[in-house]
């Protein structure tokens, strides 16, 4: 039990890194997805290169890059902050693609109907497009969030004190690695269950209206 308490002390950082990066990515992905869908070939190509570039670099390398790059500057970043930024960058690229697929799933007739009614861009986007895109976006976003929860363990490499970091320390100190990491694995599973449940609940609420 003492062991579980020790590992649990890392839950805050694990969840903080996961949801911090997710939130950062979810926000930054909006302009990136918009750019990706731009009619200007320069803009959409630039966005595509950016997305492929970000995704082409392993998350662990991103974390180390951010950690060391910011170490060169006067910015004093904690390992937690560096982890959120590093994984946030990676999330931005993946979530932008999720948004894009959500937008592409909406029939052009929906855009045309809103246009034909003279709706201003904001109303068209937030009242017509987004609610429909959300039903398409939420399942892959939830899958991504669960993946991110697991990837957040990489933050332990740069010293963020998450579940994996605590487990590693404990295992090194007491040479009980198998037990420690089995408990750590269980904790990750327990944390991912509510995310999946929440996604299912939200998804079913949103699609219930639209389903025939």
């Amino acid at each position, binding site marked *: 039990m003492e062991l579980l308490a020790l590992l649990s002390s890392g839950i805050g950082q694990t969840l903080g890194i996961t949801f911090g990066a997710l939130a950062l990515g979810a926000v930054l992905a909006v302009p990136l997805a918009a750019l990706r869908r731009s009619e200007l070939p320069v803009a959409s190509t630039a966005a595509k290169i950016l997305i492929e570039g970000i995704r082409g670099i392993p998350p662990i390398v991103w974390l180390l890059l951010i950690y060391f790059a910011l170490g060169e500057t006067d910015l004093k970043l904690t390992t937690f902050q560096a982890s959120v930024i590093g994984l946030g960058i990676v999330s931005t690229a993946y979530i932008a693609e999720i948004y894009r697929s959500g937008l592409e799933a909406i*029939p052009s007739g929906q855009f*045309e*109907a809103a246009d034909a009614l*003279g*709706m201003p861009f904001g109303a068209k986007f937030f*009242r017509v497009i987004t609610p429909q895109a959300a*039903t398409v976006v939420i399942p892959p976003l939830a899958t991504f969030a669960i993946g991110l929860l697991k990837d957040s363990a990489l933050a332990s490499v740069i010293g963020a004190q998450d579940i994996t970091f605590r487990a590693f320390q404990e295992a090194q100190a007491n040479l009980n690695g198998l037990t420690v990491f089995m408990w750590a694995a269980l904790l990750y599973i327990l944390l991912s269950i509510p995310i999946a449940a929440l996604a299912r609940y939200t998804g079913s609420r949103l699609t219930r209206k639209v389903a025939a």
Partner: protein
Amino acid sequence: MFHSTQGVQGPDPVAFPSGEADATAGGTPILELRDIRIEYKGHEVVHGVSLAVQRGEVIALIGPSGAGKSSLLRSINFLEQPSAGQILVNGQLVQGQSGSRGAIARNKSLAAHRRDVGMVFQQFNLFPHLTALENVVLAQVHSLNRSKEEAVARARQELAHVGLTGHEDKYPAKCSGGQQQRIAIARALAMDPQLMLFDEPTSSLDPELGVEVLNTMKRLASEGMTMLVVTHEMHFAEDVADRVVFMADGAIVEEGPAEQVMLRPSSERAKTFLSAVRGR
């Protein structure tokens, strides 16, 4: 009410409309298309069409598939971007014919024009995440800045107008195709349009459901709504339209009073088309 206009014109847009149109209809047309050209992927699908629509007139646009009827109709509210030509509403040139889609979306005068022109689509294009009532309310609030209460009251009125009292809280997926199309008509009417465009409004409906929609359209016509209808419903063209415009290969081949074009077409192209569709 009836008048003729030149169908296909030369490049000079000033040669429109004909004197006769003004003499018989009296006054500025509610809608005037001058030498509209539409290109699609680099090749022209509408070759300089001109047409004037008088207030209260019902015009049926008929013709074979690929004639450019829908493209022409969609260009009226710039869902399709004309590559050349002018569109005038009440004698006023509508701005916003050029530029990217984004530039058009931000163009205030174009938004105002679109609010004046109601559009009914073949696939209804109702907002699936909103109830019938919410579908009719949404643009009233966001495009016309009506209060929620006013918009709801008006939406109920328009849904009643199309015979859908009691269906206000249904989602489109729970409605029949005919009901969905009537909701779409109510949604357009709630904007107080000066004219209504119908793009094959019954083509995706079973015949018996199409009748509901056609009856609604007949009533609108009898109430004096100006309507431009792309249709394959020959009975509608014959019985309801004041004027029939027959298009083929991106140009107006023949136009005139419904009776004349439908029963005594003068062009070979129209004769062939009409006898083919009637022979079914």
